[in-house]
């Protein structure tokens, strides 16, 4: 195979500032080397494995025919001579339809399985990672699973991939044909002398040389050079056909076997939103800590020093001076109270020991007696804890302020991977999210993490408000 040119170091093609002539030389070197790269071998292997799947489309008409035959058999086979469907005979019809339905429902599931295989091939041999689509929705019961299967978008998309990939399959077969026929063509000059060394007068039939565009025939040794040339050309072309076919297949896979552009976008947005929520929770926590260790400490020390100064002034000091120090002292103390309330609103320090502790503190300081029950097996994310805490605080304040309740029950539980906060009071009811009672703000806050808030508050009570939050943002 000397026609493929010398093997130059590939680094030459990467040198900067090259002239057009150099570029052309590099391109031709690349073209010449393509058949021998590992990448080409992988792509050809990919084509070899992928091509047969293109014939899955043949299964579609077969299945259609099978279904039609089944329906026909059932309908005509059960008809009485009068032409009407006999009631008892209708049973097999339904049974048959059910079988058809089951078969159809299996298609998306099978599509998913095959899709996973194809994604694996693309990742392994092409280095093209195709993301996994969203998992099928969990369903219970035979009919639930049937319905879930029939509505499984990614599953149907994967099945459709197998039907749509026929043109790509053709290209893949061409790539394989170029490679196989090319290699075969290259061998002609070598075996010709061994098998065609008959006496001169012998009449011999022509030998065909295969190409993807048909065969041509040679009868003489000189002709084998044409076969060799055609083979060399095909070997040179095969990598590019394989590359194109593989790229087209990978593109198709990304579109049809991946998570889908919308689903991917949703996943990305969910992830970035979770990050934003967590980030802001962490930021608020840090802010509270900075206040605690910084301004609050300085202010407390200032108030303490002013208190000491006030003591040292004694009763015989200048009254004006005394008053000034008194005012400064009181001012520092007031500022401390304000700063503490501010910091508590930014991040309740009680949350540091977990939600159960923090809610107990809330319950203890509620004007209306609160019966608290908590059963949360694992700690939720800090951002979720903060939201749950502020919800509880708001709901308790609401119950105390608006409902004139005598008793409040607050229950925090971890249920089915969710955190559920339920506040029930025996008050007047009639809580309205539109009434500006803070419930709408709560709903907004809960929605930032895909939480839910359910309000049951008939006039006359009782009011039950349930906040459901995910364990993680």
């Amino acid at each position, binding site marked *: 195979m000397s026609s493929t040119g010398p093997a130059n170091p590939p680094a030459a093609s990467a040198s900067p500032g090259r002239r057009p002539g150099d570029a052309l030389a590099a391109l031709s070197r690349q073209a010449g080397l393509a058949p021998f790269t590992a990448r080409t071998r992988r792509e050809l292997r990919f084509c070899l494995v992928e091509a047969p799947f293109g014939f899955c489309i043949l299964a579609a008409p077969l299945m259609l025919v099978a279904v039609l035959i089944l329906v026909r058999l059932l309908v005509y086979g059960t008809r009485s001579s009068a032409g009407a469907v006999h009631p008892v005979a209708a049973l097999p019809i339904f049974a048959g339809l059910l079988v058809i339905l089951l078969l159809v429902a299996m298609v998306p599931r099978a599509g998913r399985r095959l899709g996973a295989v194809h994604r694996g091939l693309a990742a392994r041999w092409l280095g093209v990672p195709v993301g996994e689509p969203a998992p099928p929705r969990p369903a219970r019961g035979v009919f639930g699973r049937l319905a879930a299967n029939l509505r499984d978008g990614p599953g149907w998309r994967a099945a459709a991939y197998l039907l749509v990939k026929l043109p790509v399959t053709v290209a893949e077969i061409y790539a394989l044909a170029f490679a196989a026929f090319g290699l075969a063509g290259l061998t002609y000059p070598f075996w010709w002398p061994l098998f065609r060394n008959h006496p001169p007068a012998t009449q011999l039939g022509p030998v065909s040389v295969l190409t993807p565009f048909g065969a041509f025939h040679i009868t003489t040794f000189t002709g084998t050079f044409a076969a060799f040339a055609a083979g060399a050309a095909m070997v040179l072309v095969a990598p590019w056909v394989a590359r194109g076919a593989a790229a087209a297949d990978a593109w198709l896979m990304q579109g049809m076997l991946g998570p889908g552009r919308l689903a991917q976008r949703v996943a990305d947005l969910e992830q970035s939103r979770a990050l934003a929520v967590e980030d802001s929770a962490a930021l608020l926590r840090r802010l509270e*800590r900075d206040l*605690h*260790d910084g301004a*609050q*400490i*300085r202010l*407390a*020390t200032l*108030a*303490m*020093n*002013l*208190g*000491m100064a*006030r*003591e040292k002034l004694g009763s015989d000091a200048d009254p004006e001076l005394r008053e000034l120090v008194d005012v400064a*002292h009181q001012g*520092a*103390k007031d500022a*401390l*109270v304000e700063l*503490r309330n501010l*910091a*508590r609103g930014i991040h309740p*320090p*009680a949350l*540091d*020991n977990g939600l159960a*502790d923090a809610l*107990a*503190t809330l*319950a*203890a*300081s*509620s*004007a209306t*007696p*609160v019966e608290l029950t908590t059963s949360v097996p694992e700690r939720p994310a800090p951002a979720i804890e903060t939201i749950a805490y502020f919800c509880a605080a708001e709901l308790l304040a609401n119950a105390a302020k608006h409902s004139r309740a005598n008793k409040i029950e607050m229950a925090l539980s971890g249920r089915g991977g969710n955190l559920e906060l339920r506040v029930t009071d025996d008050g007047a009811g009639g809580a309205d999210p539109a009434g500006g009672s803070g419930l709408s703000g709560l709903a907004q806050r809960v929605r930032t993490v895909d939480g839910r808030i359910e309000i049951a508050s008939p006039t006359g009570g009782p009011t039950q408000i349930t906040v459901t939050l995910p364990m993680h943002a």
Partner: protein
Amino acid sequence: MRVVIAEDAALFREGLARLIADRGHQVVAAVGDADALLEAVAEHRPDVAVADIRMPPTHTDEGLRAAIELRREYPGTGVLVLSQYIETRYAARLLEGNAAGVGYLLKDRVADVAEFAEALTRVASGGTALDPEVVSQLVRASRRAEGIAALTPRERDVLSLMAEGRSNAGIAAALVVSAGVVEKHVASIFGKLGLATSEADNRRVLAVLRYLGP
């Protein structure tokens, strides 16, 4: 009186040490975290230890846990816990059935120097010093609303001051009345709430807190 101070903010720690020394007491150690506090108390056996709740490494409740351990290990040493926040749960954990020689105050209270010094002395000598904030939260959240409603406003003031851990003399001074008047109020409160009278102030605190508590 010998005092150990545990507070991670150096500024406040030094101010506190100065204040205490200024009142004629001896600060035998001033440390910055809970472990050092336990060591200092073991070494110096002070009359009272002053501890911040939020200290390194986790800045949550190290000081509180150390205080509870001190109360268990050294019943003779008073423990006064300081914090920038009042959590009634912390107060409950700190007292846990025994109000002798324990205090829980907001850091703000240090600004009223004389009162703080008085509270510190009280804790050192086996008394109780609960922050008015704790008491008012307990009163607000108490399920004995009817019992409390039966008290006169003056009696309610006396009840709060009792819950803070003050003696009759202390209550009299705070309300600017005579000790006899306070005694009469106290007797009336105990009668109305159906509590057994108790001689020791810290027992009285517990009785009142139990009455108020959940």
